[in-house]
């Protein structure tokens, strides 16, 4: 049995689930941002796979993946800026300390 779309989709699904897992489990904020990146990468694989098997003529999937990469970069930049601002105020990177807004 040779390489098909299903393999890529399963790979993307596995990666997506690990990203979600990491998102919820990790206590370090940097790790949370990392898992968001993993999520976005999983989606990229998905798009690339569909582009390859469905329409290589216009490769719309790949364009979408490129846009996603750009946005992911922007998001991680903003995330880290906010992280630094948070760190400057609370000197901690642990998500458990950022629970003052509740109720």
């Amino acid at each position, binding site marked *: 049995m040779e390489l098909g779309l299903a393999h890529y989709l399963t790979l993307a699904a596995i990666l997506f689930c690990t990203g979600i897992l990491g998102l919820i489990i990790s206590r370090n904020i940097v790790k949370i941002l990392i898992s968001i990146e993993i999520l976005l990468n999983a*989606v990229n694989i998905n798009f690339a796979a*569909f582009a390859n098997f469905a329409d290589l003529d216009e490769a*719309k999937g790949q364009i979408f993946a490129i846009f996603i990469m750009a*946005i992911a970069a922007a998001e991680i930049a903003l995330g880290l800026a906010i992280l630094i601002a*948070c760190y400057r105020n609370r000197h901690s990177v642990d998500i458990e300390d950022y629970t003052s*807004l509740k109720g």
Partner: protein
Amino acid sequence: MDFLLDIKTAMLPEVIITFTILVCSVLCFMLKQEKQKFIYFISLLGVIISLISINLLAANKIFTGFYNSFSSDFFSILMRFLILSGTLFVIVMTKDYSFKFKHRQGEFYLLILIATLGGLLLSGANDLIMIFIALETLSLLSYALSGFLKKDKASNEAALKYLIFGGASSAVMLYGFSFLYGITGHTNLTEIIAYLTNNSSNMMFSFALLLTIAGFLFKVAGFPFHSWAPDVYEGAPVPVAAFLSTVSKVAGFAILIKFIGLAFNNTEAIGITLGLVALLTITVGNFMALNQVNIKRLMAYSSISQAGFVLIGFALLSYMGTSGAVYYLISYLVANLGAWLAITIFDTQTNKSLISDLNGIAYRNPYFATCFAVCLLSLAGIPVTVGFVAKFYLFHTIVQMGPAYLWLLIIALLNTILSLFYYLKVVKAMFVCKGADNGSKLNFNIGVLSTSFVFLTVLVVVLGVFVSPFINIARYSAVVIDNANTSAPVSVK
């Protein structure tokens, strides 16, 4: 493909906004700190011009620009009008609030304008990528905006939570987009609809649709993805909270209706699930709001439950339902803006946002209290205001859909009582409870902020009386979306 034609017919407000963005960004760098106030006038002017430019657009035909990635029909014009008026009032709010930003006021207006541009594009976007980009501009900029008060721990925390939650939900949405792309092979909505009309939709499609709707539910603070809203509204600066609860919510609804349109012709499974989500949103919003102490958190939960009501309109999967939802959206926007204006006035002058701080204010500032009470009662759905007519019309549309939706009607009706309880709690605090007699008298003199607040309250009452023009607008826009979803793409450029 001359873009000028597309711009003139479809995208005039977006262009004007981008122009103001560029001018402001230049000014931000050039002007020194104390002259930053000048940027306020520029951005205000830009928004007003784009507001005026909207009615130049042809309202009766559907125009698509930029390779059908952006289409402006009557519905998107209406949504853009709402978004721009929302931003107008948010900018007016920030004028007094900006003393808190010390020497970075210019950037705030800039970010607000870019976010509004995102919202405008979102309401007209017709292509999956365009939707994603517009949505992300709106979300990323709101993360930055909500974290604007660097020194304030709450604002930081709010931004952090908003970013993490937003990142996750946009990833889920993207995953849905990828499957949509996988099934249909196109990224353009009209083509997807065309593909759907000629071959039957399968479970995978509804699954993909639900994934995408999850992303929009985040934007609109619907049931599963609502828990970020209270913390962010409480932590973020007040104008940003107002921005989130009005502009970004309207933009979210604009795009949500396009996607629900996809489900119009296929299974009703989506209808029932959406109905369930809508009801859960209302009930969760109401139950949580019952014993809130902070006025901003209360407004957050109230906006969640109001979003639930609009979602009910969409869950009816028919043009009647959408017209009910659109009219409800208009009334929600006006009343919510009024309420947030009041909170800003109160917050800027007393820097407190607990309900108990509002005690007995009606006897120190009668006009402020009455206006705030009118806005709240309109949200609750009390007679003379627009909220009452909106709720009545929404329930009317639910009943028109026949007895199958009786369960929807009953639960929505019961929830109005809960919502009444917590709105009355605030009104009670203002009028009935004895305030600390040393409470300072808010200076509610004639200023831009107070005039716009009074204007909005008057609008709430006037809209409650002159109802038929706005119901017709809502019905016409619902019809436009309905045939946009079902019929073949009008013109592919």
